[in-house]
Structure formats: C-alpha cells, structure tokens
C-alpha cells in the first residue's frame, strides 16, 4: 500500500501539462494508461472463475491479501483470446475497489504532452471508442488512451447475466 501511495505522489509531482502513461499492448495495439491510475503490474495467477458473471470478467484473484476482480481486456475489446502466452495485468483502483486489467504485455512509461492528444477518429469501432479517451501519435504508431472510468463504468450498468 505504502509503495503505491509513494508512486502516486511521485506522479503528482510530474509537470502539469505532461502526462505519464504506462503503455500496454492488447492484440498488437498500443494502449496508454495514465500512470497515476496504475497501482501494480503483476502476472495474473490462480484466477478463480466467477460463474454467471459478465463474459469480460476473467475472475477474481488474490493480490497481496486483496481480492482483485480481473477483467480480460481482449474480451472487453472483442479480440480473439491470446494463445498459450503469459498474460500480464495492471492493477487499478476504481471507486475504492481493486481491479486488474489483463493485457498481453506491458511496455514502457512515456511522458507525453497533453496537447499532442487527439480526439477519437470518428470511424473508430464503436466498442473501442467507448473506452478510449483519445489518441496520441507516436513515432510510427498510435497509442490509444484507455479511459478507466468509462471502461469499468460501462460494465456496471450492464444487465444482469443471470
């Protein structure tokens, strides 16, 4: 816990017009999460399935004594599942609860200026646009900003699976 807080404080000290992003790759696409929201990076192990939950919910797991709800980002983005490869997860907090976003790999930390972000292209897949907070143009590729609030918020309102 204290480590996390420390990290969070460090983020806040960063310049106000630049944002640091933790980049992750999901299905070959680069995504960025504001570093202030990322509490952990871990390998999801011993995930307990939760029957009758939404298909995107990979299950629950124990992360240092806390129960974390893991969300399979590939399924969330309607991508085919990853075959036989070690997945990674980033731990985030949303409304005082812990969630883990299961992704393919974690990249690096990028410091980007807020002004270089662009809004979603209008022809972006609706399911993607729903969770994207904008796009950054990097050298040779694009980074989609993951909007955690929208990503998780949308899952709360989903109708009951049962």
């Amino acid at each position, binding site marked *: 816990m204290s480590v996390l807080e420390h990290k969070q404080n460090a983020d806040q000290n960063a310049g106000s017009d630049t944002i640091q992003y933790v980049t992750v790759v999901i299905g070959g696409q680069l995504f960025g999460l504001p570093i202030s929201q990322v509490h952990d990076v871990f390998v999801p192990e011993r995930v307990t399935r939760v029957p009758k939950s939404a298909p995107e919910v990979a299950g629950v797991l124990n992360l240092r*004594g806390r*129960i974390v709800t893991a969300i399979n980002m590939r399924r969330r983005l309607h991508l085919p599942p990853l075959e036989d490869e070690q997945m990674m997860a980033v731990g985030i907090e949303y409304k005082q*609860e812990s969630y883990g976003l299961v992704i393919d790999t974690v990249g690096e930390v990028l410091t980007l200026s807020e002004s270089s972000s662009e809004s979603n292209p209008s022809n972006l897949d609706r399911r993607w646009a729903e969770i994207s907070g904008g796009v950054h143009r990097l050298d040779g590729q694009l980074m989609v900003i993951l909007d955690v609030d929208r990503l998780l918020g949308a899952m709360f309102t989903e109708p009951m699976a049962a």
Partner: protein
Amino acid sequence: MDDLLREFITETNESLDVVDVELVKFEQEPNNATILDNIFRLVHTIKGTCGFLGLPRLEGIAHAAETLMGKFRDGAPVTQDAVSLILISIDQIKEILNELEANEGEEPQGDDSEIIGKLEVMSAKADEAMAGGGAAEDEASEPVAEVDATPETDAADQTIERPLRPGEVSLDELERAFRETEIEVEVAEPVVVDDDEAVDEIEDPAPAPVAEKVEAKAAAKEPEKKKSGGDGAEKKASGGSVSNQSIRVAVDTLEHLMTMVSELVLTRNQLLEIVRRHEDSEFKVPLQRLSNVTAELQEGVMATRMQPIGNAWQKLPRIVRDLSQELEKPIDLEMIGADTELDRQVLEMIKDPLTHMVRNSADHGLELPEARRAAGKPEKGIITLAAYHEGGHIIIEVRDDGAGIDVDRVKSKIVERGLATEADVDKMTDSQIHKFIFAAGFSTAAAVTSVSGRGVGMDVVRNNIELIGGTVDLRSIQGKGSSFIIKIPLTLAIVSTLIVEASGDRFAIPQLSVVELVRVQTNSEHRIERIKDTPVLRLRNKLLPLVHLSQLLGIYEGEDVEKAIDSDNGFIVVMQVGSQTFGVVVDGVFHTEEIVVKPMSTMLRNLEMFSGNTILGDGSVIMIIDPNGIAGAMASYASSSVAESQEDEHEDLRSKAITNQSSISLLLFRTGAPEPKAVPLSLVTRLEEFEVSKIERSNGRDLVQYRGALMPLVYVNEGDSHRSEGTQPMLVFSDAGRSMGLVVEEIVDIVEDRMNIEVGSERPGVLGSAVVKERATEIIDLGYYLPQAFEDWFMRKEMDIEALTKKVLFVDDSSFFRNMLTPVLKAAGYDVTTCVGPSQAFELLENGDKFHAVVSDIEMPEINGFEFCESLRRDPRFRDIPILALSSMVTPASIERGRQAGFDDYVAKFDRPGLIAALKDVFSGEMGAAA
C-alpha cells in the same frame, strides 16, 4: 456540533429508552419507590443538562414532566392518564432531540405550551388528589424510606427537589457539578469525563449503598459500560466507579479493528497452510503461538462487538403497553435472558423483525379477555421473549399463551390464495401448514387493524432473518398458544463453510444451510434414481430433487448436461433453505473452513448465487455460495405445477429457449378409442383407483365416496360405463372443495412436450389434436367436463353482476390456454377478447377498443409479456389500465421482474381461482397485498 452536545444526545437517548421501560413498570407497580426514583433521576438529569447547554424547549418539557413525577413521589395517586401524558412528553423530547441532532445542535423552533399546559393541569389535579388523601401520602413515602434504607438520601433528594423553580435549581447544581468534576479529574482516569456524568453524580451525592444500587441498574441498561475490574470499589466516589471503567468508542473504530483482525486471521491461515506442507519447520512453534494469540485477539475484538440482546428489546415494553391499551387486552411481557450477547450487526438486523413479531403476538396471538376467561385462562395474556445460546447460534423465542394458530383458517386461506390446492393441503401436517404463515402476502387476521393484518409481515420477517443466515420456525398448539423460534448465527463476519468442488472450481457453502452430506456409490443404500431424466435421491423415504452445482452455476463443461450427475459416484450436499430442502451434487468435498466473508466487488454484486468471496489458507480466492440464491435457482427449475418432480426441467428450459414456447407435462390416457388422449398434468389433482364395488348409483349418476364426500363420476364419452369388476382408474380434479372423477380405461404415461394444437375440434369435450410423443393425441377440454359434475362449477361465487360490464383482453400465444381460460373468464362474468400476441393486442388497443384489464402471458415469441407490459406502461393512454401477468414460470425472480415491468399482479397459469381473485382485486381496487 460540539462533542459535549453529541455526547449529551447519545446519553439522553439512552436514558430516555430506560425511562420508557421504567415507566411501564412503574404503571404496574405505582408504589415501587425505587422505580420512581430511577425515573425521576433520569428526567432530572436531562432537565439539568438541558439548562446547562441552553436548550430551553427541552428543559421546559422535562421540567413540567419532572414536576408531575415529583407529585407522584409525594404520594399523588398514579393514573394511567398521567403515565400516558408523561410518555407523550418523553416522545416529544425524543423528537426534539432527533431534530437537534439533524440540525447540528440547533434546537428546533416550536411550541410546547400545549403539552406543558397539560402536564401542569395534571400536576394540579395530583395536588388536589393529595390534599384529599393525606394518609395516602404517608403510606407512599414510608416505603421510599424503607427501600432507601438511608434517610440521608431521602433528605438530600428532597432538599434539591422541593424548590422546583427552574433557574434556581440548575444554578445550584451547576456549582456542585463543577466542584465534583474537579475532584474527578484529580482521580486521573484516562477516559472521558463528561459533564453528564458529573451531573449524574450530583444526583447521588450520598455515599450510601443506594447510589451504587442505582448505578448498577443503570449499568445493566447501558451495556457499553461494562465492568471489567474490581478496583473501582476502592475509589472514593462510589457513583463514579462504573462509568469510569468504560469508554465510548465509535463503531467505525471497532469495525476497522474487526476488519484488520479478519485480515490477520486470513494471513495466519495462510501461514499455517505453508507450514503444514513443510514438516519439520522451525516456524512451527512460534506460529502456534501466533495462532493462539490471533485466536484470542479475534475473540476479544468480537467481544467488543457483542451486545446484550436486551438492547433490542428495550423498546418492547412500551410498545406492548401501548398495544395493550389500543387493543384493550391486558398483556404481560416477560423477558428471559436479556443479557444474552450477540454481534451488534446481527442485533440491528433482528430489531425490527422482533418488534413485528411481538406486535403480531399481541394482536392476533392473544385473545380478548372474554375469550380467555371462557377458555379458562387468566385474563391477562403473557408474551414471553426468551434468548439463549445453543451451539454457534443464538435462539430467540417469541411465545404467547394465546389461541394458537387456527389451522383450518390457515388452510382455507392457503387455498383461497392459490398457494396450494385443497387436496395438497389435506395431506399436509400441521407444521407444514404453519409454514405458510411465512408466505408472501399471507395474513390470517380477519380484519386489517392498524397493528397488523396487512399480510406483509411474516414474509418480511422471514426474509430479514434469512438475510443474516438465520431461520425462523413456528410451533403452535391450538388453544395453548404459539411460539416463533428464531435461530441466528452469533456473528456475520466469520462463517463456517464447507469447501466443495464442481467442474474443477472450488466453492464454499455456508455450513448453516447444510443439513448433511450423502456419499453416493453404486452399491450403497443411497442411490440416485431418475424419474424420466430428472435425478432424485431417496433419502429416508423422502424424495430429494437433485441438481449438479455446475449446472446451477452454468459452468458444466461436458457435452451433455444430463450426464452431469454420475449416478455411481458423487457427493450430495443436502441443503435446507427456509422450508425448501434439496440436494446439490458436487464432484468433491474437501474440508470445512472458518472463513472471513469479504464483500464482492460492485461489478459482481448482482450475482445472486454468491454472497461474497474470501481468501483461503492456500492463498487462492474462493467464491462463497449464497444458499438463498441457490434455493431461488432451484425453485426456478421446478415449475409451479403439482408434479414438479416429474418434470424434466432442462429439456423444458432448453426447448423454451429454442422455441420460446413452454412445454408442459401431459398425462396420457386411453378410454373408449385406442388412440391416446391427453390432459395437462398440472390440472389433475390425483390419480386414483377405486374398487368397482365402491361405485354407487344415485339420482341417475355414478358416485363414489371420496374423502368423506360424494364425488360424481364423469365419462369421457357419453354412454360409457365403468368396468364391471376389479378396480377402476380415474383422474380426480379438485377445485375449491369439490372433486370430480373422470373415468378412464387406462393411464398410459406422463410426458413432457410442447402442446401445439394443430387441428381444432368441433366436438365438445375435445380442444383439438396435437402431436404428443409422435402420436396424434386428443387434448381433452376439462372446461367441458367439469360442469357435468357440478353445473355451477365455474359460476359459483365469482359470478358478479358488476363484472358483466368489464371487458378483459387476454393475450396468450398458446391456443390451448386461450381455449382453456377463456371459458373460465367468461364464466366468471367477464367479456373476454383474445389475442394471439402483443402485436395483435396493440392493434386492438390502437383501434380504440376499450378494455378494463389486460391479462397477458409472459413467454411469447417476438415480444414477451414483460416487454409488452413495459410498452403499455409507457403509453399514457394505457398507463392506468390493470395488467395481470399469467405464466407457468412463477418464481420470486420472475414475480419481481413482473413487478418492475409494471404488472399489477402475477398469477400462475394453472391457478384459475387465483386469476379470478386477482381480477376481482384489480377491479375492486384492493391491490397492495395481492402482488
């Protein structure tokens, strides 16, 4: 709001609760000076503190009430009116306190002159009464002196109490209060010394034993102030010793402590698990110690959350007293085991159910005095509350010595409400009948009183209790009284669970709902048997429905769900939830484990199957099964029909999913012709065989004596006759106390199939032909035969002249039900229009056809009943039209769904009386309890 004020509010609220109780006692024993002293002291404290804090309104009322009580002390006769008046003023004080709290310490505006005036008038009356009876005064004051045993106390009190001019008294007290407080500080206790306590002490300035006695009483009422040590007696002021040994702690602090201890327990379990794997570990001994300390710590923290159940009972004497007056029944409330302790969270949850049950006992449990006298009982009824520990549970009993449950009345109510058929009811034991008391919308009170009888009570009580993992049971002996027995766990935070495996995943099932475990093997005495494809377990002569856990949870991975249950090998967890008993088949059973329930994340909280999750000793997360959720899912498998065990639920569900049309159980029989005939099984009450010799002939028709009444026999084809020898099979149809026997040649089979009447029939008595089990089968029209037995079968009581003018729109995609129910509705006097689906219904409504009510099926292709109802409700023109749901799926979940969609009522498809009753309810505007 400052701390002082907050403290004052908390303390005063507690004192007022005590006053409530004491006053009721006092009313019964007006000569008990100890009680009066106690009350007087409490009210006086309130008054004093109000003056100190500058709360003039409170002070005014308290002062007037105190004056009146002072008169009692001086020997004025205690009247019921006077006590009621004081109780009213105390309510007023409470109200002001509440507002005070809400307004952050601002005393609300208002005028209390009316109540103060009344109190003053009453005081004046008391004066007059006293003047008339000087002798009485002596008599009354004498016991005071006797009980007190110390004349100084009496004198001291009197010097304070006599001159009751507000300003003077409080000033005097304040001075003393400050003096005393200083002394207290010198004693150097580490705890809060608040001014209330100081004022308290002034109330008992004498070092006499009286003070201690009074304090001890107060301590018993205020559980937080627990005595932990004995050295208090050595302190100089005896009055202060008790309160100095306890501190007030915010509940949040305790909750947090509890959570942390829970974490500690989990970690300890994890460590133990690791050590278990490494045999000779040097960690073993210290870990053992850690484990012991943890256990003790856990116990200690739990103890801080424990409160005597008496806290939940505190308000009851007052309630019973008020009820006693309102209902004009003298009632005594006995409380046994008030010091039994339980978790405060649990305590909060049972407060309301308990209150409700006591009200119920007073209202319909106890008889009126005349009836009691006639029954040879004392006029005064007794309600007993008893609490005691038993295993990890606490048992609370609410008992009355009233009339007991009138089984016959309950029976007729059950039938009337359509909860079971008459024939079923006949077979039930008394205790089974009693269980219906807890069914939703059930009340046997003949009339709705302000106290109870609205039928929303006992099911809510049961739900509340089941919510905290408890059970409620009812025992009743007619004429002797009834008693409700509530069994609840001591705490909610830690649950003993059984760890099981299904489809490779582990789940925790709370032990509380597990009745037993049965191991099934090919050669063991317990075998899984099948009725058609439905697995059941024969256990001690009872048939237990079985479902595999992975089926319930929808995680079965095999090809064929039917094969999920391996008849030769498996474990069955027999669970009981409420009155429902069923078997859950699992692949493996590991062990039991005490686990700390952690709430699930919000995203998963809508899953009804789980109540939480936790981390096991080995570090993995496990989901905790919610027995109520499982029971609900189990119930939705079973249909509402009589022959639920004979239905094949899965095929039913699957075919429903594919064709969106429900399949039903059909009874196939043969008579007259070789081709089979069918009738929906759920309409058949019983299959019987009678000795031919038992068939009698009277008034030109065949009859048999059946259950003490004559049952007419009806033949499928006119001119048929019964067999000449041996036994005669027949189908018995019962409805509202009457039975009819339909004579058949042979009962062939019970099948599960969709019933599509493909060829209609012109012949009376036949609805048409359908393909059942790949054979063309005649579907019998019961509506034709029933009136042959009793001409007025459909017409009896429901016939309502007024109803004739009511137009009802009946929407159902199944022609069978349209054909089946239309005559029923018509016979009840309604003008019925039928529709094959919502689209046609919309058309009719759009065309301006006016209907007084809509009856709609739920399972329909294209638009289902819920959507249909929702869209009707959205249209302002149809917003107020009553809509009834009619479905073969009647589960709490579907009823709730129906309610949300806007249905006024939800009726089972085969419940014809229920439908008629619901329609009647709708038209007479008596909704409410019906849904």
